[in-house]
């Protein structure tokens, strides 16, 4: 199975899930391209969005260590989900990941598929707060490309 993050984003969009792509693909969009094993997404809170997310994940034959039900997906999330199109990392209320509604976002279109990603400033703030080794490396490279802001 080939990793198809564009297909995952298209499916989430088709189900009208409110989410933003963070992690490796957001960092790539802002200039630092590296390989990533999954698609990191932060989803909006609320039961209606969790229901839409559940439907989208079902259409991708998703499996995870917890039941993929709205009652689970509405809670704090740090959950890796395997799907027909590759792995999704669902994130909400974890260090370095702001609430979807507070996240400053911008849109990028790839092959007709709309990606919502954090702005460069929001991404830098997330990297500073997460503070893992790979976040510090990403931050240094973003600073080199965009200036240290």
């Amino acid at each position, binding site marked *: 199975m080939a990793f198809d993050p564009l297909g995952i984003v298209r499916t989430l969009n088709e189900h009208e899930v409110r989410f933003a792509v963070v992690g490796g*693909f957001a960092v790539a969009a802002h200039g630092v*391209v590296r*390989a*990533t*094993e999954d698609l990191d997404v932060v989803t909006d809170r609320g039961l209606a969005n969790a229901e839409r997310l559940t439907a989208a994940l079902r259409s991708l034959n998703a499996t995870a260590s917890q039941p993929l039900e709205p009652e689970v997906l509405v809670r704090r999330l740090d959950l890796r989900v395997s799907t027909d199109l590759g792995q999704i990392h669902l994130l909400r209320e974890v260090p370095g990941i702001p609430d979807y509604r507070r996240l400053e976002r911008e849109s990028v279109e*790839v*092959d007709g598929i709309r990606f919502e990603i954090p702005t460069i400033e929001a991404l830098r703030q997330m990297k500073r707060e997460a503070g893992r080794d790979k976040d510090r490396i990403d931050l240094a490279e973003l600073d080199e490309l965009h200036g240290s802001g």
Partner: protein
Amino acid sequence: MSQVNSHTDPRQQTWNSPEQIARHRAMSATERIKLCVELSREALRFAAARRARR
């Protein structure tokens, strides 16, 4: 004093090329996401092949 190493891997030379770096910086966000997809697929394929050999 810096010294040119004649045994440097050509791939490393490519990444040290100012032209290549400038070209990469000039890419659009869309192009970078597409490149990230390709790079990630190749990395996952490589990892899967290594696991299969073990």
